[in-house]
């Protein structure tokens, strides 16, 4: 019975909800909300990187698209927060849908760089080209309307809401990656030609995955806009891509728990370490190098490896 719950993602949802509630009430609700939103972003990114095996170095584009889509809706159309979230998701899906056909044809280095290049263009559009609409460097400051059951300006309410969102995203991805679709993704990662030989139109699946990834990332961006009450070009800044890449690596690419763990780890490092070590970006760079050369599986991967070894030893002892 327990394995059924585990496989369906129910256990994970419970753990996540509990974990973050404790973290938030124990430390700072406001900060933990930040953590959670970032974790959603990492989850969206890791779908592409860990599960499908494509490193995008420009995912801030989608985070930013969602953030700006939400912000623009609130500023120019209606301040309804849920509609803003919807607009964010749609914004991300749109950008992912349009860029997808160009981008997913590339692999490896080209894939990473193309995403980065588009991110740069997006940043330019937000900062300069459409500055009249987006507020340019200063961005847009926003007020949201209160809706029944969801008062955004109440930190505790919003905190609970983001936990709910995270659980939703986690559950969705858990079902997705455990399904045959998830297996196909991993097949594409390992050997795309073989997947094509079996008869799959891998291009379509890559595109769909790209759109899902961009939508989730945009969702996170929209949540960030709700959280901060403003949006500006830093939400789409290409130099911030290293954050989510680092999180995915340190957590352990390809695993949902790893993504969340990585998100929390990065947030902890950037929030708390930055207080004590002024040049913490150097530290980040060094940590990245360490991860690449020594700890490719990240924290979660290493935990899993140790767990496997222990269970294997135990079963050997039993026989």
């Amino acid at each position, binding site marked *: 019975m327990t394995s059924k719950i585990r496989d369906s993602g129910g256990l994970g949802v419970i753990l996540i909800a509990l974990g973050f509630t404790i973290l938030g009430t124990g430390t700072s609700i406001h900060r933990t909300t930040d953590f959670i939103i970032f974790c959603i972003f990492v989850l969206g990114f890791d779908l592409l*990187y860990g599960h499908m095996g494509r*490193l995008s*170095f420009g995912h801030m584009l989608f985070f930013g698209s969602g953030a700006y889509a939400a912000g623009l809706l609130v500023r120019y159309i209606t301040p309804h927060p849920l509609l803003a979230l919807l607009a964010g998701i749609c914004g991300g899906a749109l950008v992912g849908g349009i860029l997808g*056909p*160009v981008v997913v*044809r*590339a*692999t*490896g*280095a*080209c*894939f*990473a*760089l*193309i995403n*980065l*290049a*588009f991110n*740069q*263009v997006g940043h*330019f*559009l937000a900062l*300069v*080209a459409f500055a009249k609409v987006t507020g340019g460097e200063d961005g847009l400051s926003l007020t949201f309307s209160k809706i029944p059951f969801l008062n955004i300006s109440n930190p505790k309410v919003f905190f609970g809401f983001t936990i709910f969102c995270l659980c939703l995203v986690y559950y969705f991805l858990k079902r997705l990656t455990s399904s045959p679709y998830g297996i196909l993704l991993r097949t594409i990662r390992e050997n795309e030609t073989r997947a094509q030989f079996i008869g799959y139109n891998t291009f379509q699946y890559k595109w769909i995955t790209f759109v899902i990834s961009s939508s989730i990332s945009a969702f996170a961006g929209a949540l960030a806009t709700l959280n901060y009450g403003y949006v500006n070009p830093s939400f789409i800044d*290409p*130099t911030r891509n*290293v954050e989510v*890449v680092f999180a995915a*690596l340190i957590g352990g690419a390809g695993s949902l728990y790893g993504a969340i763990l990585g998100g929390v780890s990065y947030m902890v490092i950037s929030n708390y370490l930055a207080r004590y070590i002024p*040049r913490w*970006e*150097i530290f*980040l*760079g*060094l940590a*990245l*190098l360490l*991860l*690449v*050369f020594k700890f*490719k599986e990240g924290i979660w991967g290493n935990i899993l490896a140790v767990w496997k070894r222990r269970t294997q030893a135990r079963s050997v002892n039993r026989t």
Partner: protein
Amino acid sequence: MISTLIYGLTIGGILYIISIGLSLTFGSMRIVNFAHGMVYTTGAYILIAALPFLHNNFFAGVLVAIVVVIPLSFIIEKFIIRRLYGESIDYAIIATYAVLLIGVDLVKWIWGTSPIPLSDPVGKSVTFLSIEVPLYRLIIIAISLTLCVGLWLFFKKTIVGKIIIAGLQDREAVRSLGISVDKYFSLVFVLGSCLAALGGVLYAPITTVHPYMGFHILLISFAVVIVGGLGSLKGTTISAFVLGMVMAITGRFWGPAAEAMVFAVMAVVLIYKPIEV
């Protein structure tokens, strides 16, 4: 229009100088080298640091910058690049990006985050086809064309150049002949890095010197290499000058869009000629 064309050639020349190193490293080691941007930035900042000691002799500053970059690139190659052989390309991107990150932060630490303007070292203009053109830009064009010819001779005529060409094609076969091709690739890396530093110091007076300048130019250089065809030296050469023109002409009509236009070109090229790494 003439001055725009000259400017286009100037930018093209700079892009050529910077991108050749990137193309070589990519072709030889199949590694996307973000650290290239770090070397570029270092060159510019070393120049700024050295100028006061050299009585503002720009030429000497260029030499100092390149000399400093040689051991730096050697260290990067030995401790980072060499370990990335055979690794998945994603790790190469992340690792070299980490080097860039460290470098940028070091620069911010030492020199601060504000951009540092650098004046035109030559300061004189010449009249060319009845237009006044800064002499400095013509010098850059001359340098890049000289380098172009020099590199062409190097790869076509010298045995080391041929080893590298052969190694770019088939690394294992060169090794089976008894030639330690990796040593030559290290040489290529250092050479490419020196070129990046050269590009950095030459471009510094035209643009502004700031900690993220390497990041900036790197993206455009990647676009140059991708448009020219990965690992193709001839392609990189042509696309460098073409994209330089694109930047200059776009910049004339709508300044900030110059870089974005380069990426638009890259996107179009990729639609019609998608590339595998």
